[in-house]
C-alpha cells in the first residue's frame, strides 16, 4: 500500500537527481544523457565569473529572510490583536477576510498588481492624478519591486500563518491570565510575559519549515509579478526564475542544471548546518 507513494517519489524526485550530471556537460535537447560532451566545472565557472551566482544567492536569501522575519512577526502581532477582539461576529468576519488572499491564484495576483500599477490606467496613477500629481511608471523602477514583492507576499500569506498562531493562542490555558491578572499585570504585560513565550514552539516549527525552502522560495510570486521584464532582474531575479528562464527562454540547459544543482546543494548544506546548531541548543526543536 506504500508502493504508489514510493514509486512516485522515485520517479518524481530520485531519478531526476541522476540528471544533475547535465550540470557538467554542454547539454542540448537532442543528445542523450551520456552522449553530451563533458565539460567539467565550466558551467559553474561561468556562473561564478559572470557574478550571476552571487547576485542570485543574495537576492534569494535576502527575500526569504525578509519573508520569514516580517511574515512571522506580523502574523504573531495580528493573531494576538485578533484574539483580543471581543465582538464575536466581527472577529470571525475579519479573520475570514484576511485568510481570503491565500486562496486566490498567483495569476489573479498578477491581475491585481497590473490593475493597481499599470501606467496608463492603474488605480495608483488614477489616485495620483486626482491629487494633481503626475503618473509614476512603477514597472521601470527596480528598487520599488523589492518592497512590492515583500508586500504582496505578506498580503497573500499573512492570513494563513495568522490562523496557525491563533490556534496556538486559543490553546493557552486561561488560568495563566487569571493568575497574572490577580498579580496586577496589565494587558500588555500579560501578552508579553505569557502569550509571546507560549508561541515560541509554534514559531520554531514554522521557522524550520520555512528555512527548508530558503533557497527555493516562491517562484510563482516572482514570476507572475515580474514575468520576463528584464529591467527589473537586478533586484528581483532569484535562482528559481533564473533556472526557469534558462530552460524556457534561453535554452541553456547545462547552465540551468548547474544553477539548479548549486541551489539544491547550497540549500541542503544550509539546512544541515542550521539543524546541527539547533540540536546543540535544544534537542526538542531539531527537525531530525
Amino acid at each position: 500500500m506504500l508502493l504508489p507513494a514510493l514509486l512516485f517519489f522515485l520517479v518524481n524526485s530520485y531519478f531526476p537527481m541522476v540528471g544533475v550530471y547535465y550540470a557538467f556537460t554542454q547539454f542540448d535537447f537532442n543528445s542523450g544523457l551520456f552522449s553530451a560532451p563533458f565539460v567539467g566545472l565550466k558551467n559553474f565557472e561561468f556562473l561564478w565569473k559572470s557574478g550571476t551566482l552571487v547576485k542570485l544567492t543574495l537576492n534569494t536569501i535576502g527575500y526569504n529572510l525578509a519573508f520569514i522575519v516580517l511574515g512571522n512577526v506580523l502574523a504573531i502581532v495580528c493573531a494576538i490583536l485578533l484574539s483580543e477582539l471581543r465582538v464575536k461576529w466581527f472577529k470571525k468576519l475579519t479573520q475570514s477576510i484576511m485568510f481570503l488572499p491565500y486562496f486566490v491564484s498567483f495569476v489573479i495576483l498578477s491581475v491585481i498588481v497590473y490593475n493597481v500599477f499599470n501606467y496608463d490606467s492603474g488605480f495608483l496613477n488614477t489616485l495620483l492624478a486626482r491629487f494633481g500629481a503626475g503618473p509614476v511608471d512603477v514597472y521601470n523602477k527596480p528598487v520599488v519591486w523589492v518592497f512590492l514583492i515583500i508586500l504582496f507576499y505578506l498580503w497573500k500569506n499573512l492570513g494563513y500563518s495568522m490562523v496557525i498562531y491563533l490556534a496556538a493562542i486559543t490553546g493557552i490555558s486561561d488560568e495563566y491570565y487569571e493568575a497574572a491578572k490577580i498579580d496586577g499585570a496589565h494587558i500588555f504585560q500579560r501578552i508579553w510575559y505569557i502569550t509571546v513565550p507560549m508561541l515560541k514552539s509554534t514559531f520554531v516549527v514554522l521557522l524550520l519549515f520555512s528555512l527548508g525552502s530558503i533557497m527555493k522560495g516562491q517562484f510563482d510570486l516572482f514570476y507572475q509579478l515580474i514575468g520576463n521584464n528584464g529591467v527589473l532582474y537586478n533586484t528581483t531575479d532569484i535562482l528559481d526564475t533564473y533556472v526557469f528562464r534558462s530552460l524556457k527562454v534561453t535554452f541553456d540547459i547545462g547552465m540551468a542544471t548547474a544553477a539548479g544543482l548549486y541551489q539544491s546543494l547550497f540549500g541542503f548544506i544550509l539546512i544541515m548546518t542550521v539543524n546541527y546548531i539547533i540540536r546543540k541548543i535544544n534537542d526538542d526543536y531539531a527537525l531530525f
Partner: protein
Amino acid sequence: MQIKDDHYTRLLQGLAYTVIILGSLACLIPFLLIISASLTANESIIKDGYHLIPAQFSVEGYKTVFTFPDEVLRAYGVTLFTTVTGTLLGLFFMTMAGYVLARKDFKYRNTFSFYIYFTTLFGGGLVPWYIMITKYLHLTDSYGALIFPGLMTPFLIILMKNFIRSAVPEELFESAKIDGAGDFKIYWRIVLQLSMPGIATVSLFLALAYWNDWFSSSLFINDPHKYQLQFHLYNVINSAAFIANMGAGTGVSLGSDLPTESTKMAMAIVVTGPILFLYPFIQRYFVKGLTIGAVKG
C-alpha cells in the same frame, strides 16, 4: 463579575480594532478593484483609469467573455477534470501511505518516512525533472503532465500520518485483525472513517493547488486546447499586452481583436468565481484541519 477595563486594556482594544480593520481592508480592496473594473465600461477605464466604484457602469466585459465561451469553458473543463482526478488519486495514495507509515508494527516506517522527507531537502532541480517528464515519461501535451507532478507532497503525507496516528487508537488495529480483517480492509473501513477531518484538509490543499496551477501548463502543454484555466487567463492578459506593444512598435492598429481592459477583469472574476463562492464553506474546514495539524503535528 465584570471588572472595569483599565486604560491599558482600552488602549489595546483600540489598537486591535484599528489594525485588524486596516488589515482586512488591505485584503479586501484589491478584490473590489477587480470587481469594479470588470463592471466598468472599457472607454471609461482607458480615459479615467481604474476606480473603486465604477465610473460608468457596464456589463460589456462579461458579455464578451460569454459571447465566445468555447475557450473559457474548455479551460474550465480541463481544470475541473485535473482537479477532481488529481485530488481523488492523490488522496487515495497519500492516505494509504500515511496509514502504512502510522502503523507501529511496520518495521521500516522511519526509513521510508525519511526517504520521503529527504526529497524536500535535496532534489535534482527543475531541469532534470523537466527532462525526466518530457523525455522519459513522454507526458508532453497530455493530462498526465497536469496531474502527475502535484499528486503527492511530503508535507501532506506527514500531515496524514500524524493525523491517523492521533485519530485511530493502536488497539483498534489489533482487535480488527483478531476479527479477521485484512490490512486493506482496516484501512478502508476503519482508518478512512475515523480520519475525516484530516482527509478534508488534505483534499482541500490538493484541490486548491490543482485549481490554481498554471505552471504545469506553461511547462508541458503546447496544445491550447489543453490549457488549464489559470494559464488561459495568464495568456489572455499577457498576449494582449504583447500584441499591443507589437502594434505600437509597427504602427499597425490591432486593437479590434484584443480583449479590452474590462474583459480581462471580467475573465479574472470568472476564473476566481468558484473559489470566492465556495470560500465561506471551505474556510471552516481549512481552519479546523490546520488547527488540529498545528497542535498535534
